[in-house]
């Protein structure tokens, strides 16, 4: 699997405030699921994920860099599925600062001020992007 480009239409979805979900896998083959406050658009081929609490996820991607992320597009009646590969972690700089500001805003809006705190911005290479429309699966 090579490189995929994040389309322009995914950018507002990443900013919609709906928590994303992430799946990683340890080196010994145990999957781990977690909820993400933020998926940040870095550039067309990179996304940054907020590292706050999920230490198992952090350990997993350092053992096995592959990660799955699903972002809900409520307005667009779709889910976006990203296959990612962990590259590096940043604890300062413009990406970290921008994510830190967004985390503060999310925390304030959801009553989690003082609990949500960005420890690092983890930078991932985008391997694939898939939009899964779900209008045909709506409840009747």
């Amino acid at each position, binding site marked *: 699997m090579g490189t995929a480009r994040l389309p322009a239409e995914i950018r507002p979805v990443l900013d919609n405030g709906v928590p994303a979900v992430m799946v990683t896998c340890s080196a010994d083959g145990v*999957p781990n699921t977690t909820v993400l406050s933020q998926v940040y658009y870095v550039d067309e081929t990179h996304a940054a994920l907020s590292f706050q609490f999920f230490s198992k996820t952090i350990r997993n991607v350092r053992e096995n860099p592959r990660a799955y992320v699903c972002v809900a597009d409520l307005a667009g009646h779709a889910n976006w599925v990203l296959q990612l590969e962990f590259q590096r972690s940043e604890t300062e700089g413009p990406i970290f600062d921008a994510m830190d500001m967004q985390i503060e805003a999310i925390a304030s809006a959801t009553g989690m001020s003082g609990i949500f705190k960005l420890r690092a911005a983890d930078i991932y290479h985008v391997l694939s992007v898939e939009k899964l429309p779900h209008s045909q699966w*709506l409840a009747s």
Partner: protein
Amino acid sequence: MISGKIVRFLEQRANVAFGGTRDRDLVPHGHRVSGWRVDADGRTLTALVPEQFIAHLVESLEDNGHFALTVEEFPSHETYQFKGRYLRHRPLRHDDVEVVDRIRERFVKNVRPIYTDAPEHVLKAFILKAHLAVEFEVLEIYLQTPGPGAGARLAPLAET
């Protein structure tokens, strides 16, 4: 056994869930989950998965048996992760559909104060119609509620 407190959380308050598997190459895959139920034995969970999210599901489970399920109450963020061993999968039953309908109503009621302007059908669509039931034996439970206790193992339920 899954504790009474967590059973009540699952049956009365939780409103969103997501499952995780991995394939033989250790590539993780995700599966949105529209409903869940605790079986009478107190250690088996059934996850109800929409058709849109069944790619890699059964083949991964039949390859290695690992399944993880995170269940959350939004917007309080009370969250637990259940890890366990795949038992079987089956088509949806009528009572599974009722479970999904209840969770969809609960989700809409709980998020309405946050998404005040969102049309009803947009919020309802977040909980997709389920297609497949996956049963797994819960071996471990982890706290995932944001905060200093996140990641703590609450229950080793079986000898591993």
